[in-house]
C-alpha cells in the first residue's frame, strides 16, 4: 500500500503492468493473515447465525406454550446469542457496515433510554407487530437490548408482561429479525471474501478493528461505569447488558471472540521471533483476563455497590488495560499501524 500510494498517477499509468506482476508474486504470503481472519470470522458469524436461530426458535416455543421452563430456555438462548454477537462485535468493516447492521444488533450506548421508550410505544400501541413493521422502525427496537428490556426489565413487565400477546409478538418479531440479520451477515461475509483477500488495506483495517473494539471495551464498557471516564461517578446503567446483569459476562465473550477470531490471523501476520512473542503474550493475557472475569461472583451493578466489589473491578480493569497496551502499543507499533483520526471518525 505505501509503495503504491507514493506514486503519482502518471507513474502508475506507466508502471501498472510491472506492479500487477509484482502483486501476483507476493499475493500468496500477503493474503495468509486475511485468509486466516476470514476463515475464523466465518466460524464467528456462523455461530451468531446458529445462536440467533436458536433464540428465534426459543421465543416461538415459549410464546406458543408458555412455562417457567420455556421462559428459562428463552433467557438462556438470549444470553448465548448475545455472547456470540459480543464475540464478533469488534468487526467494524465489511458487510456489518451495511444498513446499520451493527446498530441493529445492539443499539448502545443508550444515554436517553431510547430502547425502553421505543419498546413501550410498541407495547402500548395497537399497530400490527411483525418483522416488516420492525424493519421500518428505529434501530433501538431491532436488537438484543430491546429483547433484553422485554425479558429482564420489571418496567417492561409492568407495561405488559410476557407472555401477553403484544409482548410475545414483539419478542418473536425481534428474535426473527435478529435471525434474519445474522443469516444475511453470514452470507454477505462469504460474498465479501474475494474483496477482503484482494485488498491489502484490510490487513490494517482488521488490526485496527480489534484495537478499536478493545478501546471501547476498556473505556466505555468498563471504565465509564466505574467512573473512571467521563463523569467521576459509579453508574452501572451506562454499561451494556446491565438489565440482564450480563455486563461482565458480555466483556468476557468479547475477549473470547478476540482470542478465537482475531488471534489466528495475527499469528499469521507476526511470524518473526519478536512478533510471535508478542502474539503469544497477547494470547496469555487474554486467557488470564478471561479467567479473572470467570471468577467474578456477581455482575457490575453489585460490584459497584461496595468497595470490595470495586476493588475486584479495578483488578479486571488492570488486566484489560494490559491487553490494550499490548495490542495498541507494542503490537501496533511493531506493525507500523497508527490509528487515523480523520479516517476513523470523519464527517
Amino acid at each position, binding site marked *: 500500500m505505501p509503495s503504491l500510494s*507514493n506514486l503519482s498517477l502518471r507513474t502508475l499509468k506507466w508502471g501498472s503492468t510491472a506492479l500487477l506482476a509484482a502483486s501476483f508474486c507476493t499475493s500468496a504470503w500477503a493474503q495468509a493473515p486475511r485468509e486466516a481472519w476470514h476463515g475464523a470470522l466465518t466460524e464467528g458469524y456462523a455461530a451468531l447465525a446458529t445462536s440467533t436461530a436458536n433464540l428465534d426458535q426459543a421465543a416461538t416455543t415459549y410464546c406458543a406454550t408458555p412455562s417457567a421452563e420455556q421462559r428459562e430456555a428463552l433467557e438462556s438462548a438470549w444470553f448465548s446469542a448475545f455472547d456470540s454477537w459480543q464475540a464478533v462485535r469488534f468487526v467494524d468493516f465489511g458487510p456489518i457496515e451495511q444498513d446499520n447492521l451493527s446498530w441493529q444488533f445492539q443499539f448502545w450506548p443508550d444515554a*436517553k433510554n431510547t430502547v425502553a421508550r421505543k419498546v413501550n410505544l410498541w407495547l402500548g400501541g395497537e399497530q400490527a407487530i411483525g418483522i416488516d413493521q420492525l424493519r421500518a422502525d428505529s434501530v433501538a427496537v431491532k436488537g438484543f437490548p430491546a429483547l433484553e428490556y422485554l425479558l429482564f426489565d420489571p418496567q417492561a413487565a409492568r407495561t405488559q408482561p410476557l407472555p401477553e400477546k403484544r409482548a410475545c409478538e414483539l419478542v418473536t418479531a425481534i428474535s426473527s429479525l435478529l435471525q434474519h440479520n445474522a443469516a444475511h451477515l453470514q452470507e454477505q461475509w462469504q460474498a465479501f471474501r474475494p*474483496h477482503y483477500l484482494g485488498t491489502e488495506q484490510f490487513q490494517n483495517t482488521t488490526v485496527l478493528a480489534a484495537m478499536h473494539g478493545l478501546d471501547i471495551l476498556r473505556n466505555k464498557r468498563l471504565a465509564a461505569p466505574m467512573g473512571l471516564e467521563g463523569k467521576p461517578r459509579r453508574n452501572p446503567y451506562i454499561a451494556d447488558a446491565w438489565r440482564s446483569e450480563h455486563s461482565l459476562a458480555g466483556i468476557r465473550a468479547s475477549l473470547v471472540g478476540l482470542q478465537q477470531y482475531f488471534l489466528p490471523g495475527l499469528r499469521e501476520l507476526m511470524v518473526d521471533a519478536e512478533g510471535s512473542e508478542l502474539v503469544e503474550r497477547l494470547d496469555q493475557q487474554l486467557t488470564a483476563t478471561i479467567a479473572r472475569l470467570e471468577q467474578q461472583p456477581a455482575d457490575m451493578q453489585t460490584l459497584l455497590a461496595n468497595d470490595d466489589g470495586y476493588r475486584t473491578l479495578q483488578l479486571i480493569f488492570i488486566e484489560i488495560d494490559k491487553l490494550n497496551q499490548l495490542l495498541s502499543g507494542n503490537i501496533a507499533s511493531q506493525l507500523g499501524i497508527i490509528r*487515523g483520526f*480523520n479516517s476513523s471518525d*470523519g464527517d
Partner: protein
Amino acid sequence: MQRRDFIQFSLLGIAAFCSAHSFAASSRELPDLRFLSSVDTALGEHFIVAANSNGRELFRLPVAERCHSGCLHPNAGQAVIMSRRPGKNLYVINILEGTLDALVEAGDGFHFYGHGVFSEDGSRFYATANHYPSGAGQIRVYAADDGYRHMQDLPVGGMDPHELRLHPDGQRLVVALGGIKTHPDYGRIKLNLQSMQPALIVMDRHSGEVLQHCEPSHHQLSCHHLDISRDGIVIAGYQFEGEKWQTPPLIARLDTNTGDFSEIALAEHEQAMLGNYTASVAINPHSTVAAITAPRGNCVMLLDYRSGQPMGVVSVPDPGGVLAERDGSFVVSSGHGGLYRVRTSATEPELITHHTLRWDNHLTRA
C-alpha cells in the same frame, strides 16, 4: 501557561510590540496563510487552534466539544468556527486577540453540521443545519452585523446539508447535501442509508430559491464537501455509503456558468486508492489545481479543475484539512499531527512541522 500569555508569547516570537493588530502588522514577516482548525489532544481535549503555514501555533482556545469548520469574516477580524454534527454551537472568534467573542446556539430543534459562510460584506452568516424533528435540511441565516441574530431559514429541499460556499457572484450559495438522516437521540448513527438522496445544489441566498439540483450517479454517494473557483467551477467530494467492494466516482464537477454537471471517474485501481471517502476540497485561486484529501486512502488527489483531468496522488497519512497557498502549493493537515506542503510538481509531500495533536477534518482560512 495562561492562554493570553501563550498568545503573547507566540506572537512575541514573530514581531516585537504586539498590538491588537499584530496579525496585520506582522504580515511582512509571516507567510501568507493563517488558519484555524479544530483539534483534539491525545487525552481527548478539544481546542480551536490558530496557526500559520510555517506550522507555528498562534493561539488555542479550549472548547467543550469537537468542532468542525467555519469561515473568516471578510473584514471584522473575526472568524466563526462551528461545532461538529450534532453540535449546537457557533463560536465567534476574535482572531486578532485569540479570544471568544460570542457563542451562538442553534436554537430549539436544530443542530449544525459544522460549516458556514459569510456574505461578501460580512453582514450575513449562513450555516447548514438540521431541523431534526422533521429531518429537513435548512440554511440558517444570521445577521452577523447584529449580534448574530437569527433572521430566517432557507430549506434546501433535502437532508443533511453539509458544506456550503458563496458563489463568486456573491448572490448564490452552493451547498453539498449529504442526504443522510440523523437525529441527536441516536448520536451519529445514519438512519436512512437505503433511501438517502444526496445532491449538490445552487441556491439564491436572498430568496432561498433552489436554482439547480444535481444528483450524484449513485444514491449512496453522500455529497459532503466542496470548493468553488473564481470562475464559478465547483469541485465537490463524496463519501460512499454503499458496499465496500464498489468503487464509484468520488469527485463531482459543476460549471455554474453553463450548469454542466459531471463526475470525475478514475481508473479502478486509482479510484480504489481514495478509500471511498473524501474529506476536504480546496481549489487554488493561483493555478488551475484542486486538491481533495482522502484520509481513508492516506492520500491527497490533485486534479485540473478546469479540464477535470487527474494530475496525481500524493501520499499523506490521515489527511483532513487542505488550503491553497499563493505559490500554487497546498497546506494539508493530518490527524497524526503533521502539517504538510503538497506541490503538483512533487510526488512526495514536505513535512512542514509536527504537533502532538490531531488536526480535525478542515482548515479554515484566517
